């Protein structure tokens, strides 16, 4: 799995790391038990402050994607830890807020319901390909 960060992006670096790891887990690029580099190794490889990597790892742990196994370091967690009902409810609530914001913005640009649903369909196809 290739992880890239861009300090010039509007998205904070720790969020970039978090999103990419979460996405890799979602599409199966990372599986339960797969190791992640140590904070120091990843920070040195990306040229990123160690505190930033620590924040990303802390967020990944809180969201249940990663577990710390002592000297073995960080590993991808079992799906049950990030697919708990509590995590699902929190993700749904967050997604609802973001969708609401996107819908309002599209409406303000003169786009209609069909356009919004079309974009949502494309995004869904990218993550959950039609069988």
């Amino acid at each position, binding site marked *: 799995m*290739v992880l*890239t*960060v861009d300090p010039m*992006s509007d998205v904070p670096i720790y969020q970039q790391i978090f999103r990419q790891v979460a996405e890799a887990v979602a599409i199966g690029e990372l599986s339960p038990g797969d190791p992640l580099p140590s904070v120091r190794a990843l920070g040195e490889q990306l*040229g990123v402050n160690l505190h930033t990597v620590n924040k990303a790892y802390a967020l990944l742990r809180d969201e249940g994607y990663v577990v710390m196994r002592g000297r073995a370091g960080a590993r991808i967690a079992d799906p049950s830890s990030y697919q708990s009902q509590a995590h699902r409810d929190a993700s749904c609530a967050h997604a609802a807020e973001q969708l609401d914001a996107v819908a309002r913005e599209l409406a303000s640009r003169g786009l209609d319901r069909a356009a919004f649903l079309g974009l949502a369909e494309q995004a869904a196809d990218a993550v959950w390909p039609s069988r």
Partner: protein
Amino acid sequence: MQILMFVLLVGCVALCGGLIAATPWLMPANQAFAVTVPSSAHDDPSIRQWRRSYLWASVALTGIGTLIAAWSFDFVTGADENAVAFLWLYCLAVAVPLAGSFALMLHYRRRVQALKAEKGWRATGQVSAAVIDEPDLPRPVSMWWNLLYVPLILATAALVVCNYDKIADQIPMNVDFDGTVTSYVAKTPLSAGFPVIMEVFFAVIFTFCLWTIRRSRKAIDPNKPQTSAYAYGLFAHAQSAYLLVMGLVLTGTCGILMALSSFGAITMASAAIIITLLAILACVGAVVLSVVYGQNGARVFERLQGTDAMPADDDEHWILGVFYVNREDPAVFVPKRFGVGWSCNWARPLSWVFVAGLVLLCVVLLWLCLAMG
């Protein structure tokens, strides 16, 4: 013996100068004379012309250096003033291609920077990449292999201890280029054990160098992360394996031959000949490795299709194109920008600690040499 030393000394200048001259062709496509450029710029006519000009000028400088090195050999006799003249001349022989090529690099670096501004080559961001959980990627050899130095050192120590009584009261320490012993030291446990001390010194140096390769940031191009990660992995693996093997061979050979010569099993001149041949082999091997793989594995794949994209540009952190200084970067060791190998991030205090440690190690060795008398 003299012929061998001549080949070693003159050959080193020619070999190193030749490698320096070839350096622009060994660098990744997204760098030209230590300046970040789009990989498509590798075939820019101006940059191609500057590479050729740099090559011929460096070859000329190497030629001059080689001639000076050959001339310096005229001063190799037993007289002190000639030895001093030889040393000064040989230093000049090394300095001419080294300093001259560095000045040339800076000259063409300025030209590339001007071309970059003129063409509007700008990075779209400061993207960096890491490859995670790819166990099949080649990597540097394990540090555990360095434990092989232990039996080597113990064997040499055993050789010295078992033959201590056979060691002469005056141990030969230096030979001139004719193979004639020029200095002796009195036999003491310290002087008799000097081969072991040298082996420990070499083992520490080689082990540390291998550790820096393992610890270094990997050169991964965000435009082609998988191929660049694979190429770099091969490069780092080859360099680390060569370092380990030559380190063991050189360390063991020097130590054991020195020990054997101390109690007359072989002459010091014979020991010097074998060590010299090995040194020549080591130099040639290192150059071949550099040319085959290129810096960061740049020559592992046939030149891939260039792209105009520049995902990152860290030129501002490379002072004079060769000294990396970046406070925001936690990496201590990074791949070199112009040349084959690795360098330090001089903004990290740990870099200076390591350099101080190496200097201290050399001082300790020197002190031990002086203590032997």
